[in-house]
């Protein structure tokens, strides 16, 4: 069964450093998402991406964040200058081409980002 993959599984970085979290969505999916879950808190939407542009972003997704689909398979989340409060589990998700609210979003296993 096809699945979403994410690398690395755990990333440790120093405050102020740039990090890139990588995701490989399911191959025939066209809608891509990033969510994050701070320890002990709920999963929060960050951004959705379709047709090489952002469809929607939350207030969390400020200028420090960016997303990119650099080639036909990868989908990345970049944090330019990490803060302590960026420490969280980051989940990538993808869904099929219909873009309906009934679409199932398939999630990757997550990348745990620790900012020191």
């Amino acid at each position: 069964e096809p699945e979403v993959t994410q690398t690395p599984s755990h990333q440790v970085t120093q405050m102020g450093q740039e990090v890139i979290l990588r995701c490989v969505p399911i191959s025939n999916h066209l809608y891509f998402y990033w969510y994050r879950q701070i320890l002990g808190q709920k999963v929060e939407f960050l951004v959705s991406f379709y047709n090489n542009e952002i469809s929607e972003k939350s207030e969390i997704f400020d200028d420090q964040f960016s997303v990119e689909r650099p080639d036909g398979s990868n989908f990345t989340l970049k944090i330019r200058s990490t803060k302590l409060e960026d420490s969280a589990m980051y989940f990538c998700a993808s869904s099929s081409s219909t873009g309906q609210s009934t679409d199932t979003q398939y999630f990757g296993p997550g990348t745990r980002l620790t900012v020191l």
Partner: protein
Amino acid sequence: AQSVTQLDSHVSVSEGTPVLLRCNYSSSYSPSLFWYVQHPNKGLQLLLKYTSAATLVKGINGFEAEFKKSETSFHLTKPSAHMSDAAEYFCVVSDLRGGGNKLTFGTGTQLKVEL
């Protein structure tokens, strides 16, 4: 804005007894609702989803949920708990406004299954 409320942060049951995880939603129009499960150190896995077809939805591993519009509820049930069901469960609503199909998660219910 759409939202979901999971009424219990922790539920503990004995193996072989029924499971009930409660969820209420708030939506200004017909929502799509989902239950996802997260096992320790694993990603989020879809259990089931409601998409305005049948109000009783069957999912994987014997779970089911019933959409009740009059009560704005979407509770998750299973007749007989298994040790492997121990995990965190999230009730989720889908919001298409803004064109992005954003998912809004509840705070989660940690299910503990005891022998």
